[in-house]
């Protein structure tokens, strides 16, 4: 019988993708040009987020009293703002701020959303009902209004904006995770695991969680895009990061009054936001394609 199995094994392994699924993932990323590009862009942007302060030519909060509202020039590559700060330096510094806010907000969403989603799906019954009704209620309040109210309650600041954005997208995330968990829960291997007598926590930890990580990852990227936009939107209505923090949305807000006099003030932060969100979204798309079994031939 050993002999048999060897030939069988030979037949099977050869046909399929490489030994480690992780490898396959990178292979696939490499194959998708858009994914590769967005990954490179994101890595670059993250790098800027880290080293920005060192490569920035000026202090982002220091005003040059001689150079208010100057257009792009050799001295100030992207120009200066209304109070004479170097826009390029501010955008560089802002990268970190913006990314941190978005990532932390998504962190809140993901941790709470996953917990609620998994628990809801796993426990079922009354708890499921209760949690989902609460999510319904939160969902019925439009995100930005909820965020507005939270910021109004806690006072405007970067941290509070983060919390507000994070909280306001918990319900959608929880629902998505719950749906994904339900699929896993009804899968054969969870049932098989239960038939062996495996305890619940083990099943959640080793059967459910590893199998929703793909989904989690994909949703996460999608939510990061949303979070950056929301951060910017809160900044835009003056409830985000507080001046002089160089957060992109806040910068856009400051620039909106100078659209006709100093186009660069609103244009560059706007572009920066769009590029990052675009990169994140495209990466999310690529990840979804990669992880979605339907698109795997």
């Amino acid at each position: 019988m050993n002999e048999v199995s060897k030939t069988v094994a030979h037949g099977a392994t050869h046909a399929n993708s490489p030994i480690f699924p992780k490898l396959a993932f990178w292979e696939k990323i490499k194959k998708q040009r858009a994914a590769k590009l967005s990954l490179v862009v994101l890595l670059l942007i993250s790098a800027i987020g880290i080293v920005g302060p060192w490569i920035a030519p000026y202090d982002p909060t220091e005003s040059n009293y001689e150079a208010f509202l100057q257009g792009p020039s050799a001295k100030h590559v992207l120009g200066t703002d209304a109070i004479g700060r170097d826009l390029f330096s501010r955008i560089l510094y802002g990268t970190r701020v913006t990314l941190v806010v978005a990532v932390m907000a998504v962190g809140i969403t993901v941790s709470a959303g996953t917990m609620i989603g998994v628990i809801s799906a796993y426990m079922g019954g009354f708890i499921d009902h209760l949690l989902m009704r609460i999510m319904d209620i939160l969902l019925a309040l439009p995100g930005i209004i909820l965020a507005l109210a939270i910021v109004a309650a806690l006072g405007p600041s970067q941290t509070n904006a983060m919390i507000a954005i994070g909280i306001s997208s918990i319900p959608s995330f929880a629902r998505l995770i719950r749906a994904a968990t339900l699929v896993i829960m009804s899968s054969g291997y969870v049932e098989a695991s239960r038939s062996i007598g495996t305890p619940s926590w083990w099943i959640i930890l080793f059967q459910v969680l590893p199998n929703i990580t793909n989904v989690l990852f994909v949703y996460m990227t999608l939510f990061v895009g949303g979070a950056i936009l929301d951060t910017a939107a809160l900044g835009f209505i003056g409830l985000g990061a507080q001046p002089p923090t160089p957060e992109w949305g806040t910068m856009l807000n400051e620039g909106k009054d100078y659209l006709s006099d100093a186009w660069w003030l609103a244009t560059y932060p706007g572009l920066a936001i769009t590029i990052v969100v675009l990169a994140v979204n495209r990466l999310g798309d690529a990840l979804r394609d990669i992880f979605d079994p339907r698109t795997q031939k």
Partner: protein
Amino acid sequence: MKQYLLNRMLSGVIVLLGISIFSFALVHFIPGDPVRIMLGEKATKAQVEQLREQMGLNQPLPHQYLTYMEKAIQGDFGTSLQTERPVIVEIMERFPATAKLAFAGIGIAVVIGLTMGIIAAKYKNTLLDFMLMAAASIGLSLPSFWLGLIVIMLFSVQLGWFPIAGGTGWKDLILPACTLGVLSSAMISRLTRSGMVEVLSHDYIRTARAKGLRESIILFRHALCNVMIPVVTVVGLQIATLLGGAVIIEQVFNWPGIGALAIRAISARDFPMIQGIVLLMGFVYVVVNMMVDLLYGLIDPRVDLITEKEGR
């Protein structure tokens, strides 16, 4: 069917109740004493206290909540602290503008989104598809206010084609509605495309081909109907959100809708107004969702109206 509607209404009421409690609590945690705000800086402590007493703000919160709800059920949502007009009147004055914007925006979004999605799916993996979806991705990545500002700059200021001073006429509607529409269409077109691509790979499409049907029939009769469920869901959610005010777009385009009212109410700590708006939004959300659910049944006969849908 009746039973189902009843069920939905009941759960809708529960959600609304939840919203009312939640918003009531939230509103009272927002710092800023409404009475102080109403009376201004010059008021004395005694005056403030007196008015608090008058307004029942000294009562314990649960008591205040119950009083509020008792009236709300009778259609009395209190009066705005700012304008002293009934909240419901204020909201209803703004609602038509918001509804106009929401429906126009969604209408545009649906037309653009479906067209783009279907074309992209039909020419899957071609340059056209790539370009359409790239456009959609950009649409999803644009900050709405930025796009709004640029649109104003371009079409009103530079070209002078459209007025911008936030009237509520049809001409005023074009820019904000298009901005909204373009932004929302991104999501719809992507959904439509992925839905179409998936549906086109289904066995029944192969069956339809095996029957020798024309491509247009396959695309529009056999495929599109099956794609409508996620599209309708998203459109429903968007309508619900927009009917609660496209806060940012209203702000940018000076549109006199609920969103602008909401921002003003929040900054003025106009508690009854905030509460009224939140409740209205909840109500709209619940109603729209209910209609979406009913639509499901019309679109897809498999959706058993009686079963509870989950994971939406």
